[in-house]
């Protein structure tokens, strides 16, 4: 791939596909079609790296994260985690893995049990996995985790509803850290937060990555946050990766027409810049993943499409060092 040797990646995804069946009939259910949520994607994440996975609703970014966490059993492909293919493992073979991989969800309201105190929420995974059988030492660890995440250790006795959205998200992060994981999937982890609080949590995630040598898959639709938090970024559209590159390279020199449309749609908080910007919104809407367009899935909306785009599915090609694009019209 590159001249300089790279260390073996912590995670490597090869040809991953997740097709959900659509069934009809209540008594005898028949399969009448499938949703191709993820349709053959490849990428890898190095140890200590943050890879951003971006795209609009329904592009398959969340399903990709769920497959890697093995909350779904993928239809096809390999998920090599630290060299081992976990795509086909049975649930009980996954127990050890669950400790090494954690997840932070978007909505801190619905991902924290409202009837549990914050201390119990964070202690539960430690207890379940038997990492710290002694209740007193477990409580100390919970207090440590809270203060690592920028919360007063006194919060152990609070309930989630007594906290602000930013504080709740810190609890979600503390719970993910409770297992001393090495890999965390952040699924829209800062999307529900106000800008002033969002920046605090982005900084916390970056501090924790350095301090605990974490590796992140950062799934988000907010491209501005992704540019600043992620070293590399992959752009998804209708179940496929259309472009992947180092963060600044991707945002300064987007090559795929979809990436270009996506970036130009994001308004920049500066009226002088906005007054100068060329801006053409992408026409139409994202087609259904039940019956995706033939060939390149973006061709019905693409300003550059030629006849061949309807026929041949473009594969990712390396157009510049480390910059991969799935478009036959980019040269």
């Amino acid at each position: 791939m590159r001249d300089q040797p790279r260390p073996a990646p912590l995670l490597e995804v090869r040809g991953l596909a997740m097709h959900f069946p659509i069934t009809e009939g209540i008594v005898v259910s028949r399969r009448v079609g499938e949703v191709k949520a993820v349709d053959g994607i490849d990428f890898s994440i190095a140890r200590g790296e943050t890879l951003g996975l971006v795209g609009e609703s329904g592009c398959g970014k969340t399903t990709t994260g769920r497959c890697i966490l093995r909350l779904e059993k993928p239809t096809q492909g390999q998920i090599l985690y630290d060299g081992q293919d976990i795509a086909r493992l049975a649930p009980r073979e996954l127990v050890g893995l669950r400790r090494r991989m954690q997840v932070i969800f978007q909505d801190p309201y619905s991902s924290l049990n409202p009837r549990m105190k914050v201390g119990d929420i964070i202690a539960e995974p430690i207890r379940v996995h038997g990492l710290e059988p002694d209740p007193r030492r477990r409580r100390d660890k919970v207090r440590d985790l809270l203060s690592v995440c920028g919360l007063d250790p006194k919060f152990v006795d609070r309930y989630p509803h007594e906290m602000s959205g930013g504080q709740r998200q810190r609890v979600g992060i503390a719970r993910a850290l409770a297992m001393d994981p090495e890999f965390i999937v952040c699924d829209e982890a800062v999307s529900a937060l106000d800008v002033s609080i969002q920046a605090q949590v982005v900084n916390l995630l970056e501090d924790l990555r350095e301090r605990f040598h974490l590796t992140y898959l950062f799934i988000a639709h907010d491209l501005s946050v992704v540019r600043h938090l992620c070293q590399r970024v992959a752009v998804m559209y209708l179940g496929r990766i259309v472009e992947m590159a180092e963060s600044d390279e991707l945002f300064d020199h987007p090559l795929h027409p979809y990436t270009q449309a996506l970036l130009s749609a994001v308004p920049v908080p500066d009226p002088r810049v906005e007054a100068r910007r060329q801006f053409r919104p992408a026409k139409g809407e994202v087609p259904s993943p039940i019956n995706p367009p033939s060939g390149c899935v973006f061709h019905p909306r693409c300003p550059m499409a030629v006849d061949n785009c309807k026929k041949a599915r473009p594969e990712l090609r390396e157009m510049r060092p480390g910059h991969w694009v799935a478009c036959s019209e980019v040269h």
Partner: protein
Amino acid sequence: MPPLLEVRELRTEFRTGAGIVRAVDGISYTVEAGETVAIVGESGSGKSVEALSILRLIPDPPGRIIGGEVLFAGRDLRKLSEEDMRKIRGRDIGMVFQEPMTSLNPVLTIGRQITETLEQHQGADRATADKRAVELLEMVGIADPRRRLRQYPHQLSGGMRQRVMVAVALACNPKLIIADEPTTALDVTIQAQILELMKSLTERMGVAQIIITHNLGVVARYAARVNVMYAGRIVEAGSAEAIYHEPRHPYTVALLKSVPRLDQPRRARLDPVEGSPPDLTKLDGGCAFRPRCRFAVEACGRSMPALETVGSGHLAACFRSAEVAAARDSARESAA
């Protein structure tokens, strides 16, 4: 000529279990005919309550508009009867809300939601209303409008539902549209389509807009004038150019710095506004931003700073606005 809308010292409060929340605490601003004004703020700043107060759509109890005037085309909306107010809503003032799935009626066809407005406000007969509904859907860029008119909201995508909301809002040729987070629930490419649509239609029809949003990018792209809200008050107001390039309130400065920008190179650390948003039941007589403010001095705790002119058409509610400007200028010098 008086402005199209003049809000004077508007106050709305909610009685809650935890105490009285002054959600809107003495707000004044104007909207001229045909212009786009933004109200920007974070959750709990009172920006949506303020918009609902203009339209008198505050649920009572627990909410109550307790003071101020809302002068629309010379009339005080607060003094109108409920029946007269109903004639204003949807006819003179159109509304576009965040979530089109909850603001469209799920058991009425798209066509009926549009024709109902036309029949109610313009006394149109069924045939005229149907014809006009087709025109309106074409105007907002919905293909095959005749088929869409017979469909129900759940059969449309989120972007298309929001286009229908825009069609309903514009159906009676209003003078003003109040758009409360009109694109927050939508994907970014659809958001751009809807905002461009609203911009071109309001310009063509000469309709004024109030855009309420937390998105500073949307404000920069679409608004000529901006009101920044914090804890129920406008803390800074001015042209978009002044707010973004010469901010004089520490909250505006901090907010702009905390937003990651797509057009700037990667920096792993952002500059957050430290601290937490204020608890609105526990506000004292001082400036509500004081606990998070790096310019705060003792005077900030003694009384609430009023909005004062700091430049042409530029207002800021801060005792230290001169120091804020000086700090910005010296930061610029050292950067240059």
